[in-house]
């Protein structure tokens, strides 16, 4: 019995002391480790997107960031990989809205290419060639592009250009989507099949329909309304959802989003909207919706 208790006891004590010590050190170093990780991430992001005052917003974890300045989308930063000579080559690329490369960065710490040869893809002298190029130019010179490969390291050089080019192909289309306003996205969702033609700002023609967007100050903030007209009559209206920034009082102003209120508009001409009864207890919100429809209609000048 004694042979059994003593070893158990010793092992438990050793385990407890060790765990205690580790959790102490862990808590002490954790903030520092996180700070470093964030710093090095921000560093490489601003390295490939060298524009003063941009902020990066993560879209796909560890893969795609959108670079914004004063609310405007300036471009994206993406991470892509391809198979090199003896492992994976990872590239971090900054891309502007026209699809031009701002800068390419290859982190050395995950690079396993041959030192002195393939490793040179991480050097500035090779990477600076990418800046200013567009997708179709990102090939080695021997493949008809504009990049001088590294002597005796063609596989690594080609893999790097492939990673950059494929990344642009994968993520460039996202810029458009990321810089869209919520109502532009919503309209696309409402008419997924049809081609959308923009007539002027916030007015679109979709087949035989005219769609416009307008917003008006409500009780808790701006209320945005998308109006779909067919034969000059309202076919459909969509009111901004809370996720899209709608912020009226729950149970009162929020009722303007309910079917009961929305259905009153269907089939009416926009100029007749004024006569529709508002919601009791939510006059400001209902008026905002009505005014948005009327003012938006004035904006398009009643044109077809």
């Amino acid at each position, binding site marked *: 019995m004694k042979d059994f208790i003593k*070893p158990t006891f010793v*092992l438990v004590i050793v385990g407890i002391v060790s765990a205690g*010590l*580790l959790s102490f050190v862990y808590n002490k170093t*954790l903030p520092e480790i996180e700070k470093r990780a964030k710093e090095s991430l921000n560093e490489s992001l601003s390295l490939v997107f060298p524009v003063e005052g941009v902020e990066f917003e993560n879209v796909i974890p560890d893969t795609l960031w959108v670079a914004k300045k004063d609310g405007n989308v300036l471009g994206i930063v993406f991470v892509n990989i391809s198979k090199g000579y003896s492992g994976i080559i990872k590239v971090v690329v900054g891309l502007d809205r026209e699809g031009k490369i701002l800068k390419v960065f290859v982190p050395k710490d995950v690079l396993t290419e041959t*030192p*002195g040869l393939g490793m040179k893809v991480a050097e500035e002298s090779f990477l600076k060639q990418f800046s200013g190029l567009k997708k179709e130019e990102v090939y080695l010179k021997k493949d008809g592009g504009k990049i001088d490969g590294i002597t005796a390291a063609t596989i690594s050089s080609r893999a790097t250009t492939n990673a950059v080019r494929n990344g642009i192909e994968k993520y460039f289309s996202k810029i458009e989507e990321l810089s869209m306003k919520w109502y532009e996205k919503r309209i696309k969702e409402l008419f997924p099949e049809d081609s959308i033609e923009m007539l002027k700002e916030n007015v679109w023609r979709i087949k035989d329909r005219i769609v416009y967007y307008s917003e008006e100050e409500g009780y808790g903030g701006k209320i945005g309304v998308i109006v779909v007209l067919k034969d000059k009559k309202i076919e459909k209206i969509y009111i901004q959802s809370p996720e899209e920034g709608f912020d009226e009082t729950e149970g009162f102003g929020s009722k303007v989003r309910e079917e009961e209120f929305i259905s009153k508009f269907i089939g009416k001409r926009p100029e007749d909207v004024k006569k529709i009864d508002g919601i009791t207890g939510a006059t400001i919100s209902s008026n905002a919706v009505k005014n948005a429809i009327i003012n938006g209609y004035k904006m398009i000048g009643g044109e077809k």
Partner: protein
Amino acid sequence: MKTFINALLDNNPVLVMALGLCSVLAVSTSAYNALGMGLAVIFILTFSNIIISSIRKVTPTNLRIPIFIIVISTFVTIVDYVMKGYFPALSKNLGVFVPLIVVNCIVFGKAEGYASKNTVIDSILDGLGSGLGYTLVMFFIASVREILGQGTWMSIPGGFPGFKVFGEGFMNYPVLMMILPPGGFLTIAFFMGLLKFYQMRRGK
């Protein structure tokens, strides 16, 4: 003092006992990495020696291995955290070889072969000696490999670019093989021979 010298030279863990060669080969491509790794091993070796020798009388014989592993891995993890927090570049370079110190033969061999049988003071000296022996040897090997293979000495990733030992012409076409594993084996063998030669001369 004799313990210390013995552990450092006559029983040098790398050159005489040929322990921990894997990490020596992998890490000794640059002098800075070697120094960082060496300091980590000195710290871990000394402290795990202290703990293991001070609990040697209460350690049940059949449970000594798990206990050694817990003690060693505790110190390894501490070093890993500290390195990640305060020396991120070094930590990235050493990569998996820091956590692998847990199963480094030097640390484990010393715990089993020395610290569990000797007093705390002796164990400290033995730990410092072996650790220093490991570090010095690795530092020399790494210096040779870095100078010949890269043309620099003591370059720090993301910081100090290192002393340029040879001119630009050499930097562009260094002896690449020295950075690769064959260079590691050759250099280790060379140093082993050197120590043997010294010991034979002194013996006579």
